[in-house]
């Protein structure tokens, strides 16, 4: 095993359920130490892909290796390298937080005292020590996720799979989960996460693969994906919305293309051939004595990226929700 070995290398992964192909030839290359995001709507095949890589589902086609170890032929070794945190917290409802962590420690071969010490330590680090003796069924969604992630860290795996780590969490808990993930990366872990939230992938991932209907439709850094869709856009809002039409004429004269107007708010959305032309537009408006309330130049959002890549929005999908059935 060399240090340049890929953390995850998958070629042409296929998973079929009857006649339905849930994953249809997905390639992934995750480098050690990075956060790799798999982005896609419900039912796109994200969870199924992760389940195959984690040995939870047999691989129907293609091949995959983790740190150079073949997934299909060496499942027991793979399970020593990967920590899995599921979409639905996979901890035992009937046990307390401490008992859960002690159980997983014992299963990993730790002695009783060591398992209890690790459990106490992890509960403290995850801010769960007050809930240590409570049964999980009395836990909030956020606490379950944290405990679930804590359970994945007992073995200190070099690679962590996070399947939709923040789905269903409130914004504050979500932020806590994000900082937790960043700390894991700082400690040298490699992270493969799935998400249907575009801002989450944007915030956390070094690189993103966009999956739709079992196929990878794009891959790159968040920046690359956004630039691949188009150039920057200038959003201008005028102080006096009566002047919207006048401003539109100036923009059209300068750039040769009419902007998209929202006259009721005095807004203009101006597609820029390149970001530098924003200055031309702003100077033109100033010379015509049109006063500007706000002006922003920004790249397209990942929502717009998704729309452009797949022809449909990220939140809806007409493919069956296979992810849930096999999760």
């Amino acid at each position, binding site marked *: 095993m060399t240090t340049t070995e890929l953390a995850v290398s998958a070629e042409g992964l296929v998973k079929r359920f009857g006649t339905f192909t849930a994953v249809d030839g997905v390639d992934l290359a995750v480098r050690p130490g990075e956060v790799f995001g798999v982005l896609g709507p419900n039912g796109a095949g994200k969870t199924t892909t992760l389940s195959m890589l984690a040995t939870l589902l047999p691989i129907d086609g293609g091949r995959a290796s983790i740190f150079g170890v073949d997934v299909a032929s060496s499942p027991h070794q793979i399970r020593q390298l990967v920590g899995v945190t599921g979409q639905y917290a996979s901890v035992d409802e009937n*046990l307390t937080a401490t008992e859960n962590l002690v159980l997983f420690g014992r299963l990993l071969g730790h002695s009783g005292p060591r398992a209890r010490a690790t459990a106490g330590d992890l509960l403290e680090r995850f801010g769960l020590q007050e809930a240590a003796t409570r049964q999980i069924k009395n836990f909030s969604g956020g606490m379950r996720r944290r405990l679930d992630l804590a359970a994945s860290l007992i073995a200190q795996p070099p690679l962590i799979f996070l399947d939709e780590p923040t789905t269903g969490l409130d914004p504050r808990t979500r932020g806590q989960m994000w900082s*937790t993930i960043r700390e894991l990366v700082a400690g*040298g872990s490699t992270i493969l996460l799935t998400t249907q939230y575009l801002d989450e992938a944007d915030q956390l991932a070094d690189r993103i693969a966009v999956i739709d209907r079992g196929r990878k439709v794009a891959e790159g850094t968040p920046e690359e994906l956004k630039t691949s869709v188009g150039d920057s856009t200038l959003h201008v809002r005028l102080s006096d919305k009566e002047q919207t039409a006048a401003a539109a004429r100036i923009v059209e004269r300068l750039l040769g293309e009419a902007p998209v107007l929202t006259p009721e708010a005095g807004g203009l959305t101006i597609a820029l051939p390149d970001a530098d032309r924003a200055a031309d537009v702003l100077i033109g408006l100033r010379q015509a004595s049109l006063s500007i309330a706000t002006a922003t130049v920004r790249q397209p959002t990942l929502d717009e990226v998704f729309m452009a890549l797949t022809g449909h929005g990220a939140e809806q999908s007409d493919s069956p929700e296979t992810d849930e059935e096999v999760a």
Partner: protein
Amino acid sequence: MSAPTQTLLPQGRVTPPSERTLSVRPSVADTWRQTLAMAWRALKKMRRNPEQFFDVTIQPLLFTAMFAFIFGGGLAGSVEDYLPWLIPGILAQTALTASMATGTQMREDMDKGVFDRFKSLPIARIAPLAGPMLADLIRYGIAATLTLLTGMAIGYRPGGGVLGVLGGWLLTLFAGWSLSWIFAWLGTVARSAQAVQGIGMMIMFPLTFLSNVFTDPKTMPTWLQKFVSVNPVSQVVTACRDLINNGDVTAHVLWAVLGCSIVVAIFAPLAVQSYSRKM
């Protein structure tokens, strides 16, 4: 609850994969430790869900008394004369019912998220099945003890002495444990816990009633006698009668132990294989 500020990893950094030694497969000692850990989990669950004990507490009391008083006079002349015949039979019946519950509960458990984690851990595939089955020996023990005590309360005096009764008790536990592998396998192939229960009933009724549990098969038609004589439940019942009533380790005892071992040898690998492939 606040965001953790210190590092999440006890040693600060994870060991890179290049510096790790990976085990190829779990050793026998590992497998045993993991099974014990899973049994510990099952015991914790039992303590928190006491309704899991209903079938092994109510049923022995009810069935023993009920069948003794209903059939006793008609089949053996009196309740006292029927008890030596009935009690070992009820022991086997209770073991069978309790082992079916083991399969049903295990299936229910497998639908929970925690089984995803068990599958993702580097542990022996048999441990999540064998652990709860080991813990369920407690349930069979309670059922067998209560059956014997109820019998004695209504006049049963086992002739085999302490050792004979202990032998019969142990055989009941072993039979329950062995048969539970059938229902565990059923649990891994059936669609739901309800399905396990339904199919289990269809297996359980013929096995208990088309046997020598309640009456001597000599009174049955010849074709039925043939089935009764190969029914493993009949073997266990006859063995229990020899042990508890006479204190004899007869050939029936050996056949019963062998029969139960064969059940384990067939259904344990089937259950583990189907669990690791399909669940």
